[in-house]
């Protein structure tokens, strides 16, 4: 065996495919290399080492035939005029500098491509091409050929358009920043002058310019706080924006009054500064993961087009135009778009995504096939019985159970800010009463100063920056939260419910095990040469399994395939019967034992030899993670859509004390979560498939686990990469520390407030004190938040 790695994709090379001194693992990689080499695009390999993506499976060029359909093209092409068409694709494979480089040089490969531009974070590519030189289908084929197959779904590219940068927020920050810095500059002489500088009339000029500059801050940049406070008050609810809006309003009115009556200079610098910092904080917190779609409906799971048989001819049409009793053609690894009757003799449908069953289901002619399943093996024909919108899976999606909104709990920040506001108003009242006794002239200055100094903006800053930092650190460990409220929801979790298939097990990586009488080498060779002839997925797994044991092959004399049952064959002096237990029994081979789940039974020369059994591979270190979660006091549950064949294994991994339920339908899972919630638990659901969609939505925190690029994730609050599930306990732990960080920093800001209060209540708050206190508190809060989030993240950083 060669010890070389593939020059293109970096995988180990088993066979010697090479060009000059460069080795390739397969012909696919070699072909991509040749194409790039021919077009002088080999810089692709210089920018990062082995950047290529292995094109999985066979490259089926007719897979994209549906793109020739004009109605589908119209859905995808954003803009078309003469010989220019614009199209945007989502390419989840984009991962490195080389990807960007290659995708932006596509025009070198095909002159029909006029311009291509990638967006790395959104993982999108915008292509301008000439439809008369290269068709949309050819364009997609080219992308798929070089390893970047676009994700095209029934919903079209609608969801791409939803993700837009919040430009308004940037405008507000820009304007607030501009006004703040200029006001600061113009206020500077005021800080220094103790009448030492003879400013004279210039002083008035400065403060009037300040007043002018503060207007856009008040009217435009801070408008969000006023609107939010107003809507809160109308619902009789004092949210955090209410005291902030009050402070801004009081500060501005007092400053305007002082300036217009020429009695002072006001606190406009502090006001605009605080607005600027708060806006930056909100922006920092809300900056989310562009390339993820957390809210998907069933539309994004189905393909955009289907192949329909019309009078014996294959016709491509958009899925939305599919009607009852049409005949669709489904090729290997394609998804079944609608509930339909099977017309072909037999089929193997992988329902793992819909039901959570691990092994593909064998179906006979005339049986009902449900939408969402994936055909394994050869092409099949189906007769549609229900249109796409009414299939079992979409009904599930549209069921009223799923429409129930999650009760989003109000953030703990709001009650805090309420207490804060009450205490603040009390201090203001006491100050007012005190000065009404001693010096009535100081009532107004002192009371307004209290309101100016003690605005809960430090609380808001602490919260927004801390959540922003925590979200980023979690993202580094591949847990992508939808927004900051997810972190708060994690704080309260006491129960965690796991799904099995795809969550605890790795669906991509199933392993075969042989149980029974030992097989001789020649027997294995004979069996291998027979299973190789069948397209049945289990049969192919057996072939691969035996391939690892023996490398020779032999011929067979006679072979009979019974679709959906098994194979009878003669090879050399072995008479081999392989297939389901029922098939073996029908052929007169008796065997007492019964097997659960999917097995392939083998008999040679009339003697039962043994079974090939599919084994689940559990993700690494699941047991350790479970043990840690238990130690932290969480209640754990397991809900699986699969058969209880794995119970004993699961006992070993999860322990005996965890409630385990099997053969759970999506509705069962949802109701289970609901029941837990009624019992007063706050539930986190960790799942992956569509069968978990309801539970994910109903739970307080729904985490979708995914292996491949984020193609298939049901609507969820957070997305976790499959290989990171072993650190889930640490990630939860870290998310919980966010609250501690906020409490720590907030107590620091209380100190600032006390200092400010001392000046305010004694009616000695000069603009200079305010101007020093404001930036110091804001900047120290931001810095401390970043520092503490970094320090606490050491547990999740160290585990690489």
């Amino acid at each position: 065996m060669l010890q070389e790695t593939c020059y293109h994709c970096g995988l180990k090379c088993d066979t010697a495919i090479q060009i000059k001194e460069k080795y390739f693992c397969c012909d696919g990689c070699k072909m991509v290399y040749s194409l790039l080499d021919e077009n002088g695009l080999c810089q692709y390999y210089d920018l990062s080492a082995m950047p290529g993506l292995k094109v999985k499976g066979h490259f089926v060029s007719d897979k994209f035939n549906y793109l020739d359909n004009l109605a589908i093209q119209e859905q995808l092409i954003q803009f078309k005029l003469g010989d220019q068409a614009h199209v945007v694709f989502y390419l989840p494979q984009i991962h490195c500098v080389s990807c960007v480089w290659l995708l932006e040089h596509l025009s070198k490969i095909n002159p029909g491509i006029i311009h291509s531009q990638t967006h790395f974070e959104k993982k999108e590519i915008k292509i301008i091409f000439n439809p008369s030189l290269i068709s949309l289908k050819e364009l997609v084929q080219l992308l798929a050929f070089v390893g970047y197959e676009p994700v095209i779904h029934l919903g079209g590219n609608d969801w791409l358009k939803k993700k837009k940068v919040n430009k308004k927020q940037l405008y507000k920050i820009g304007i607030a920043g501009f006004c703040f810095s200029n006001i600061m500059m113009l206020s500077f002489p005021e800080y220094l002058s103790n009448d030492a500088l003879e400013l004279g009339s210039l002083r008035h000029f400065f403060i009037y310019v300040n007043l002018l500059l503060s207007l856009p801050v008040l009217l435009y940049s801070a408008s969000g706080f006023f609107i939010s406070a107003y809507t809160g008050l109308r619902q009789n609810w004092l949210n955090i924006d209410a005291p902030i809006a009050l402070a801004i309003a009081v500060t501005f009115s007092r400053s305007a009054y002082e300036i217009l009556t020429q009695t002072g200079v006001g606190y406009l610098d502090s006001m605009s500064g605080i607005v600027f910092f708060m806006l930056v904080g909100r922006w920092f917190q809300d900056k989310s993961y562009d390339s993820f779609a957390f809210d998907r409906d069933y539309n994004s799971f189905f393909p955009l087009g289907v192949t329909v048989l019309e009078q014996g001819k294959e016709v491509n049409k958009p899925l939305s135009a599919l009607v009852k009793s049409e005949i669709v053609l489904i090729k290997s690894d394609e998804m079944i778009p609608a509930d339909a009757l099977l017309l072909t003799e037999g089929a193997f449908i992988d329902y793992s995504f819909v039901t959570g069953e691990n092994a593909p289901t064998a179906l006979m002619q005339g049986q009902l096939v449900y939408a969402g399943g994936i055909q394994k093996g050869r092409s099949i024909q189906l007769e549609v019985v229900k249109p796409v919108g009414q299939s079992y899976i979409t009904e599930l999606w549209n069921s009223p159970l799923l429409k129930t909104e999650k009760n989003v709990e109000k953030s703990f920040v709001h009650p805090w800010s309420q207490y804060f506001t009450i205490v603040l108003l009390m201090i203001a009242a006491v100050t007012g009463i005190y000065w009404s006794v001693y010096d009535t002239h100081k009532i107004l200055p002192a009371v307004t100063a209290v309101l100016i100094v003690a605005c809960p903006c430090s609380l808001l800053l602490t919260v927004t920056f801390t959540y922003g930092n925590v979200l980023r650190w979690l993202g580094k460990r591949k847990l992508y939260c939808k927004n900051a409220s997810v972190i708060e929801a994690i704080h309260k979790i006491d129960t965690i419910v796991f799904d099995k298939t795809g969550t605890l097990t790795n669906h991509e990586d199933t392993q075969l095990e042989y149980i029974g009488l030992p097989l001789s080498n020649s027997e294995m060779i004979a069996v291998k040469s027979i299973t190789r002839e069948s397209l049945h997925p289990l049969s192919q797994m057996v072939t691969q399994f035996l391939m690892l044991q023996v490398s020779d092959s032999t011929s067979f004399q006679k072979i009979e395939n019974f679709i959906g049952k098994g194979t009878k064959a003669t090879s050399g002096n072995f008479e081999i019967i392989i297939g389901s237990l029922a098939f073996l029994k029908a052929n007169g081979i008796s065997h007492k034992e019964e097997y659960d789940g999917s097995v392939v039974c083998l008999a040679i020369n009339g003697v039962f030899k043994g079974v090939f059994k599919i084994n689940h591979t559990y993700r690494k270190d699941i047991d350790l993670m479970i043990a840690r979660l238990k130690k932290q006091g969480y209640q754990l549950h397991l809900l699986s859509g699969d058969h209880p064949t794995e119970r004993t294994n699961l006992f070993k991994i999860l322990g005996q004390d965890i409630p385990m339920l099997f053969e759970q339908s999506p509705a069962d899972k949802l109701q289970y979560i609901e029941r837990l919630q009624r019992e007063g638990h706050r539930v986190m659901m960790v799942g992956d498939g569509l069968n978990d969609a309801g539970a994910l939505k109903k739970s307080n925190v729904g985490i979708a686990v995914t292996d491949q690029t984020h193609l298939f994730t049901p609507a969820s609050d957070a997305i976790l990469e499959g290989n990171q599930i072993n650190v889930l306990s640490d990630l939860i732990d870290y998310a919980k520390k966010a609250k501690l960080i906020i409490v720590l920093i907030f107590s620091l800001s209380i100190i600032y407030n006390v200092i400010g209060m001392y000046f305010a209540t004694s009616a000695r708050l000069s603009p200079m004190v305010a101007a020093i206190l404001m930036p110091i508190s804001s900047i120290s809060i931001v810095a401390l938040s970043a520092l503490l989030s970094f320090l606490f993240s050491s547990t999740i950083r160290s585990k690489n």
Partner: protein
Amino acid sequence: MGVIVILIIVSVLVAGGFLMAFLWSVKTGQMDDDYTPSVRILFDENFENEKSGEQKIKVSNKVV
């Protein structure tokens, strides 16, 4: 001292120019992507610098 008034006005105008530039850049979508341009600028567009000489000829034939 009167000159300070002019200077202030000029300085605010200059700063306002930068503000306008910022607002324009947001509006035209220059803030939409804050990562890819940093990668793109490092690409070497010079195809003549390819390692092997034979490729050079092919490139010049292909590139329109």
